[in-house]
C-alpha cells in the first residue's frame, strides 16, 4: 500500500507547472502611488525616515536614471517595461516596526513557514527544523524586512546583521562610507534605478578578526501585484574576518511579469573572506512563457584588502529573464575571486549570466566554473570577462564553462572576453557544449531509472563541482530544485 501511495505522490508532484512557491499571501499592504517620480523617491525615503543625505543620494540617482537608456546588449528579449505602471514600494501594513515576532502578522509568518524558512528561533533550537544547523535569517517581504533572527547572539560576536533601512539609523557612518562604493550610483540602468528606489535588504558588518558564528541568510519574497522589488544588500568583512551568506528568493505565480532589480555590494578588507551563495528560484513563468520575474541584478564584490577573498556561488533556476553578472574587483594584492554557477533554463526562460574578474592587484587569482543547462525552448548564455590590468603582474585565471542541451528547441551560448594587458598574467579559458548522450541515458534506464530520473542524475553529476561549493543545507535544496526545474524536459 505504501508503495502505491508513493507512486501516487510522485505522479502528483510531477506537474508541468511544478513551481511550488506560487501561492499568494492575502495580506493587507500599503503601496506607494503608481509610477516613478521624484515624489515616489521622496515618499520611499520618508517612509524609511531616512536622513537627508540619503534622500539626496536617491534623488541624484533618480535624475541620472531619467537620462539613461535601457541596455540591450544581452541575449534576452522582452516587451518594453512600462516603468510608470509599476509600484515601487509595497509593505505589509503594520503599526510601526514589529518589536518581536509576536507582533508580526501571523499570515506573513505562515508564508515563510510555507516556504520552509524558519523565523522562530526556538523552533530551530528545539530541533524541529532541519538538522539542527543554526542559520540567522532576515526575511524581506516586498519592500520591507519583516524579521531578523538571532540578532542578540550575533551582536555578542560584534556582528551587525540587520535590515539596511535600520542600519541607516543605527550605523550611519558605515552605510555612508560603503553604500555605492562598489556599485556606483551611475553604474548601469538597473543599478541606478535601484539606487533611487531601493527599499530594503540586508546589511552585514563583520568586525576585524571575527569569524561569523553562524550562516547568515536572507529570504526575499515578492507578493504584491505589479510591484517591483528593489533590494539592496551591503556586506562588509573587516580585516581578517569571515562570513558565509545565503540568499533565497521566491514569488507567487502571476500572469504578468514582475521586475526585480537588486544591487549587492560586498567589500572585503585585508585577509577577509565572504562566501555568498544564492539559490534563485523566482517564478519562471508558466509553460507558455506567460508571467515570471524579470531578474536584473547587479552584484559585485570588491576585494579591497590584500589576501582577501570573495566567492560567489549561484544556482539559478527561476525567473523568466535573468540578467546577472556577479563580479569581483581584485584590487588587493594576492586577493582571490571565485565564481561557481549553475544556470538552468527550461520552458521559455532566458538566462544571460556570467561574471567578471577584474585583476588590478599583483598576484591576484580567480576561478570561474559555470555550468549552463538549457531545456525546453529556453536560451542560456554565459557572458563573462576576465581582465588583467597593466599592473596586475602574476594574475591567474582559470575559466571553465560547460553547457548542456536537452532537446533541440533550446540554445546555449558562450561569450567570454579574455583581456590581458600584462605579460605575466596567465589566463586559461575552456568551454564545451554537449548533450546528454544516449549511452549515458540508456545505461541509467537499464538500471531501472525513468528517463527523467536518469536525466536528473546525469545533470546532478554535471553540476557537482558547483554544488560542492554550496553550504550543506542549500546543496540538498539545490539538488531537489534541479530535478524539479528539469521536469517535463525529457520525452
Amino acid at each position: 500500500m505504501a508503495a502505491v501511495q508513493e507512486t501516487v505522490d510522485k505522479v502528483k508532484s510531477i506537474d508541468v507547472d511544478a513551481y511550488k512557491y506560487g501561492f499568494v499571501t492575502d495580506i493587507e499592504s500599503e503601496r506607494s502611488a503608481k509610477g516613478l517620480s521624484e515624489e515616489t523617491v521622496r515618499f520611499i525615503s520618508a517612509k524609511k525616515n531616512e536622513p537627508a543625505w540619503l534622500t539626496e543620494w536617491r534623488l541624484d540617482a533618480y535624475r541620472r536614471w531619467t537620462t539613461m537608456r535601457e541596455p540591450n546588449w544581452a541575449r534576452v528579449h522582452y516587451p518594453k517595461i512600462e516603468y510608470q505602471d509599476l509600484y515601487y514600494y509595497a509593505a505589509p501594513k503594520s503599526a510601526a516596526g514589529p518589536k518581536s515576532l509576536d507582533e508580526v502578522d501571523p499570515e506573513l509568518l505562515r508564508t515563510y513557514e510555507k516556504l520552509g524558512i524558519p523565523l522562530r528561533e526556538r523552533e530551530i533550537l528545539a530541533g524541529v527544523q532541519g538538522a539542527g544547523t543554526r542559520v540567522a535569517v532576515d526575511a524581506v517581504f516586498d519592500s520591507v524586512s519583516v524579521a531578523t533572527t538571532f540578532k542578540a547572539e550575533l551582536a555578542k560576536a560584534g556582528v551587525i546583521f540587520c535590515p539596511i533601512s535600520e542600519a541607516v539609523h543605527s550605523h550611519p557612518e558605515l552605510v555612508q562610507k560603503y553604500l555605492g562604493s562598489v556599485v556606483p550610483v551611475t553604474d548601469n540602468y538597473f543599478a541606478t534605478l535601484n539606487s533611487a528606489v531601493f527599499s530594503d535588504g540586508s546589511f552585514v558588518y563583520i568586525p576585524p578578526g571575527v569569524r561569523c558564528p553562524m550562516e547568515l541568510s536572507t529570504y526575499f519574497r515578492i507578493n504584491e501585484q505589479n510591484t517591483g522589488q528593489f533590494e539592496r544588500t551591503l556586506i562588509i568583512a573587516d580585516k581578517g574576518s569571515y562570513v558565509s551568506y545565503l540568499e533565497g528568493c521566491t514569488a507567487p505565480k502571476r500572469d504578468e511579469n514582475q521586475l526585480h532589480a537588486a544591487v549587492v555590494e560586498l567589500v572585503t578588507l585585508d585577509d577577509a573572506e565572504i562566501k555568498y551563495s544564492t539559490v534563485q528560484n523566482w517564478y519562471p513563468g508558466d509553460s507558455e512563457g506567460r508571467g515570471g520575474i524579470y531578474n536584473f541584478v547587479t552584484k559585485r564584490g570588491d576585494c579591497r584588502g590584500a589576501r582577501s577573498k570573495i566567492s560567489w556561488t549561484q544556482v539559478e533556476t527561476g525567473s523568466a529573464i535573468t540578467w546577472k553578472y556577479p563580479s569581483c574587483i581584485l584590487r588587493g594584492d594576492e586577493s582571490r575571486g571565485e565564481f561557481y554557477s549553475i544556470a538552468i533554463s527550461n520552458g521559455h526562460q532566458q538566462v544571460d549570466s556570467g561574471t567578471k574578474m577584474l585583476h588590478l592587484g599583483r598576484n591576484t587569482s580567480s576561478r570561474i566554473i559555470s555550468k549552463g543547462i538549457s531545456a525546453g525552448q529556453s536560451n542560456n548564455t554565459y557572458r563573462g570577462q576576465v581582465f588583467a590590468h597593466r599592473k596586475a603582474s602574476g594574475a591567474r585565471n582559470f575559466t571553465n564553462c560547460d553547457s548542456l542541451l536537452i532537446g533541440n528547441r533550446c540554445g546555449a551560448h558562450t561569450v567570454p572576453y579574455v583581456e590581458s594587458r600584462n605579460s605575466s598574467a596567465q589566463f586559461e579559458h575552456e568551454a564545451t557544449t554537449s548533450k546528454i548522450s544516449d549511452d549515458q541515458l540508456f545505461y541509467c534506464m537499464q538500471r531501472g531509472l525513468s528517463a527523467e530520473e536518469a536525466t536528473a542524475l546525469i545533470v546532478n553529476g554535471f553540476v557537482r563541482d558547483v554544488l560542492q561549493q554550496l553550504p550543506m543545507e542549500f546543496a540538498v535544496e539545490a539538488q531537489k530544485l534541479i530535478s524539479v526545474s528539469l521536469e517535463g524536459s525529457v520525452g
Partner: protein
Amino acid sequence: MSPQQSEGAARPVAEPVGAVISVLRNDAEKALADLFANSRALFVGSAEIAQRREAAFARFSRLGLPNRRVESWHYTDLRGAFKSALPLAAMPDAQARASVRARIEALRAADTQAVTRLVVLDGVFEVELSSSHLPEGLRVTPTCNALIAGDACAARAFAAGDLGQGDAAVALNEAFATGGVIIEVAAGAMIDHPVEIVFLSSGRAAHAIYSRSALLVGDGGVVRFFERRLTHGQQPIQRNETLFVDLGQKSIVRHVAVAEHEAKSAVDVATTLVCMAADAEFTSTSLQFGAGLRRRQIFARMDGPHARCSLRGVGLLRGDEHSDTTIVMEHVAPGCESRETFNHIVDNDATGIFQGKVTVAAQAQKTDGKMKSRAILLAEGAAMYNKPELEIFADDVTCGHGATCGSLDDNQLFYVQSRGIPKAEAEALLLEGFAGEVLDEIGNEQTRDALMDEVRAWLAQRGQK
C-alpha cells in the same frame, strides 16, 4: 575607475538587434558619402550591380564606421583610425608598375615551385605583372572586365553568398570595389601548381584601395591557393579588400595567406568570405604580421552537409602594431566539422586580438566544432584580447573552445638554457616551436619551410634589438 575596469553591464557594447543606431557622422563618414556620390561614374557594372552598390552604401550609412560600440569590432576602432576618407586610388600607371616590378621579381626569385601569380596593384588586376601562362581548367577575369561585360562571375563575386552583410567594412567594399580578379576553377579540374594572388599597394600617394576578388571552384575542383598582401611605399593608405571563396561539392581548396608588415599609417582590412557546398574541404593557414591597424575577418558558412573547414593562423606583432583576427563560422547543415587554431606572439606595445564565433543552427546536428586561441606576451606593454564565442541551437553537437594567454613558460626556458643555450636563443627556439605548431599543418613542405623562414627572420630581428 576607467571605462576598462567598469562593469560590463554598464558599458554599452551593444549591437542592437534590429534597432537603428543614431550615428553622429564624423568627417570621414561624411567624406565617404561624398566620395560615393561623386564616384558613381566610375562604378561600372550592370543595373543589378549598381543596385547592390546603392543598397550596400545605404547599409553602411546606417551602420557607420565600425567602432568599439559595435560588438564585432569591440577591440578595433576603425572609426578612430579613419581620420578622413582618402581619395580612391588612381589606375596604376607605368611608373607605379615600374616601382613595384622589383618586388614581384623578388617573389618570383624566391619561388621554390612553379606558381601562377596574379597581381592586384592598388586594387586593379595587372596583366603585365601577372603570369601569362594559365594552367588548364583555370579561368582568370579581371573584376573590372567581368563587371563591364556583365559576366555571371562578377555577380557571384559581389553577391558572395550574402555573407558578412551585417558588417560595415564589407558594405563599404561592396559599394566601392571595381577592381580585383576573379579566378574560376573548372569542375573536376586538379590544378597542379599553386595559384597566387598578390595584393600590392604601390604606396605612391595617400589613397584608399577597394577591391573584390573571388575564387570560384567548381564541383570536385582541387586547387592550392596563395594570398600575399604587400605594401610598397610609406604613404598612408586605407585598404579594404574582399576575397570570396566559393567551394563546389567535394572540392578542395588549400589556402595559405601571408600578410606582410605594413606601415604605422596603414589601415588594412582584409575580408575573406567562404561558402562551402556539401563535402567540400577548405583549409587555410595564415601568417600575419602587424600594421598600424590590421583586421583580417573571415566569414565562413557551410551550406552543404559534411563540409570541413579548418582555419589556422600565426600572428607576429611588435612595436605598437595592432592586429585583429575575427572569424564567424556558421554551421547551417548537419555533420560539418570546423577547426580554428590561432597562435599569437605579441611583443613591445603591440595589441593582438582574436575573436571567433561559431554558430550552430538548429538543423546542423552532429556538428563538430573546436576553436583554440593561444598567445604569448613577451613584453610589459603587450596586450592580447581573446573572445571565443559559441552560439548553439542544436542539441547533438560537440563544440568547444579554449583560450590561453601568458608569458613564455619559465620551466621550458630553464630546460633549454640548462642545455647550454643562451637565453635569447632559447626564447627564439621556443617561440619558433610555438609558431611552428600551427604552420606544421601545411602539407606542402616547401610552402611550410618558406613560411618558417619568415618566422625565423622576424624572431632574428627581435634578437638584434
